[in-house]
């Protein structure tokens, strides 16, 4: 009932970042820039958004997916570390997951209203 969002077909969703935001209300932002306590829905997971890291983009993407960062999942930052507000602990559907903001750049989230 509450989680009516079906997992979005990646073939349709993946190629471009911008159009998905236009199709619904709200603002699309990387999870790394999200504000604590503001819930949203993941619209896109793409490893190359995180830039060059230890893992190649495809591997990062698969790891995020395996941990439940998948299009359609509800996400919200619950806690932030003391130094540089990093890492972050997020609610991911019914789970809690910790990650660094660096990797959180690979997750794009639609937050409902643009005002905080």
């Amino acid at each position, binding site marked *: 009932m509450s*989680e009516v969002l*079906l*997992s979005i077909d*990646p*073939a349709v969703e993946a190629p471009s970042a911008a159009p998905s935001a236009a199709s619904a209300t709200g603002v699309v932002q990387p999870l790394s820039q999200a504000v604590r306590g503001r819930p949203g829905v993941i619209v896109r997971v793409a490893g190359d958004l995180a830039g060059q*890291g*230890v*893992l190649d983009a*495809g591997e*990062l*993407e*698969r*790891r*995020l*997916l*395996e*941990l*439940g960062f*998948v*299009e*359609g999942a509800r996400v919200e930052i*619950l*806690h*932030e*570390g*003391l*130094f*540089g*507000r*990093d*890492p972050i*602990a997020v609610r991911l*559907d*019914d*789970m*809690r*997951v*910790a*990650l*660094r903001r*660096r*990797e959180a750049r690979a997750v794009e989230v639609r937050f409902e209203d643009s005002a905080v």
Partner: protein
Amino acid sequence: MTATVLQPARIALVGNPNSGKTALFNALTGSRQKVANYAGVTVERKEGLVTTAGGRVLHVLDLPGTYSLRARSPDEAVTRDAVLGRLAGEHEPDVLIAVADATNLRLVLRLVLELKQVGRPFVLALNMFDIAQRQGLRIDLEGLSRELGAPVVTTVATRKRGIEDLVAAAEALFVAHAEKANIWREPTAAEIRAAHGQAQQIMRSYVRPAERPDTLTGKLDGVLLHPVAGLLILLALLFVMFQAVFTWATPAADLINDGFGALGGLIGQIVPEGLLRSFLTDGLIAGVGGVLVFLPQILILFFFIILLEDTGYMARAAFLMDKLMGKAGLHGRAFLPLLSSFACAIPGIMATRVIDQKRDRLTTILVAPLMTCSARIPVYTLIIGALIPQRNIWGVINLQGLVMFGLYAAGILSTLIVSAVIQRLFWRTGSEPFMMELPAYKVPDAGLVARQLWQRAMIFMSRAGRIILPMMVLVWALAVFPGPPPGATGPAIDYSFAGMIGHAIQPVLAPIGFNWQMSVALIPGMAAREVAVATLGTVYAVGDVEGAGLSALQGLLHAQWSLATGLSFLAWYIFAPQCVATLGVVKRETNSWLWPAVMFGYMITLAYLASFATFQAARALGWG
């Protein structure tokens, strides 16, 4: 004719981390389990036996937790290879048990869909089902079973509920022999997404969300993960932990010491004076005692570590420490192995297998011995007691305590600096991504904690004991042979092999302020750091360094060593690789002599430089 022996079956437990898999393994096999290593790799292999109602023996293998068969760490590779029947030296499992936390099904359902492709028959165990019921979570078991094409059993591992049903289901699958072709291959991102969609679909059809979801975890996290309060609580916790390790362990360690001392005395009365008595009391009994004496500290430390893991707090500690560890180029998870290294680098190095990436893991292994392990404590205590005055500065701070703190701080600081240097300069990589589930908090099960503690103790005794004991006997031999010539006046060790080596290397150690007695003590001190104390007792001919002997030795050192020499010796022990057991375990973990050699080289260089700087600076200050 009824005595036909039923063919035994091989069962493997697979599941996400934090699914209660270890508890389930424990409930299934009870005390009939043994811990070893997989051939060729250093991942722990836990196997146990269970007998079914019909009398069939099941060999149950507890595989490392994973979110995917696509292995990312050595542990997960074991799980993948075992499931696929590719693991060297292992038979493929006949039946898999997929273990799921019933309150957290989404990710494990995706893993189950992967398992299904393997084609091996499996049963899904919905563990922690009591918590699911308490939360008002409804699961259509029949529907789920139909959808997955596998039996579904509910279990409460900690109360041993559902265990018989699970065993019966596994046995039935074994008898049915319903194997299919293996069509598993590493999924692509698109396939993982598709599987998630399918898992989501299954969730929607057969699982009704919890009416009373767990709110305690959120409330606790509000405090425990608070940027300031959370860190303070973690520090307070660590403080209590180390207080306990050092204060609670002392009476037990004293008891062990006294017991072995008394045993040695008893043998001394029975066996006549001579080589045999010397071997029995100074070689063998002292050797066994030297292994056992560390057990109290290790047990107390692991008691806390297991408790922190089983409550779910360990993941929070890693979260809180990640930034600091990240500064050193390490992963938040390196916190646990490094913390363990405070007791002993050996379990610490063995615990590095929780780190996914090979380079991060190697770095952590290389720096773990820099953390101040408990074997350094006797050395530190001896030297501090002998040379640092027992007085307070500013009325409140105990000077001896301050020096001890300084030694610990130097250990931690050098650990962080050396790892940053290795990560940045040698590997030239950033650190591995830090991503981990923060599991719901749980009340730990007393029986499970006790069993894990027992296993840790056994692992320590067999692995460390097997190396330390022969080394102790070797050291005894080095110090005893050849015997002194007739009419000799000095202590016997002066004429022995150890004495010869000590005298030979002494010129090299002169610039760092070491006399020949210290140089001699370094040789047997290679067996284990604390052995140096006993050897100093021998070369200074005070005999047994327990009780009165220890004060006598401290008095002698006070009279004969300068403060500069004492400080230099302390600086040496911060860095020096004075432990063959550590080097041995590094060889086993990295499967190469290269890394122990690198470790030995860099540590002894640092030790020499630190001692040289300390000695020369102290002399310049007039402490020579």
